[in-house]
């Protein structure tokens, strides 16, 4: 008898009322967008400000000699570029 009495209760807008009362959704796109924007600005600044013309030419003998005067500026440039690439990849793959 108890089982028989368990009739289905029509929704009648109940679900809608619950969903309307839920806290507002967090803006999950905001953080990756900020990261992506910052990375893009970083790229632009790096292209504009890095002393590309003053960078020492790289040749095999210079690399093999491990001359710090040649390697240090290039290491810095590569570090900046790598960090910007990493930031962009992280922004694209962001999963909150």
């Amino acid at each position: 008898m108890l089982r028989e009495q368990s009739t289905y209760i029509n929704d009648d807008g109940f679900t809608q009322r619950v969903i309307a009362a839920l806290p507002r959704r967090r803006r999950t796109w905001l953080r990756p967008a900020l990261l992506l924007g910052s990375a893009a600005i970083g790229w632009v600044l790096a292209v504009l400000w890095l002393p590309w013309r003053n960078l020492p030419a790289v040749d095999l003998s210079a690399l093999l000699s491990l001359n710090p005067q040649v390697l240090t500026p290039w290491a810095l440039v590569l570090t900046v570029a790598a960090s910007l690439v990493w930031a962009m990849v992280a922004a694209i793959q962001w999963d909150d």
Partner: protein
Amino acid sequence: MTDADLIARVLAREDHHAFAELVRRYQSPVRAFLARMARGDTHLADDLAQETFLKAWRKLHTYRGTAQFSTWLFGIAFNEFRSAARQRKELTVDDVDELPAEATQPAAGSGNDLRLDLTEALKRLSSNERAVVVLCCQNGLSHEEAAKALDCPLGTVKTNVLRGKEKLKRWLQGYQHYESA
């Protein structure tokens, strides 16, 4: 889509559509359970059911999936009912053990009369007895699931089911075929 898929989507993306689907699936048993608990006050039951689902939204990350989702929801619903009853100071007057003799002897009548009297008799059970009788006998939860939902020992659930059934049987003994209840 399974409950687990929907829950995963809610947790990953705060997906309102996925949560709406969960609410649609379980609104009926949760509202019916709370209506029983609130002794037929459907407005109070719906308010409590809404609070239940809002709390489920906030606490969804704590759902481990060891019990069925409905069992977890019934647990929240019962806690909501208990808090509301405590606020309304109803728990102290809730435990009506015995009815006056004339009320316990309904005249044997139609199935509709029995249904009405069963509804009335359920209202007379204590809240703990009513909760386990409704969960186990109406919603088909096992004693273990009811114990999990109500966060009480298994022995207490078994005792309350037995006691609740005995009271119902005593109060409704005027009806034939009561055993089928």
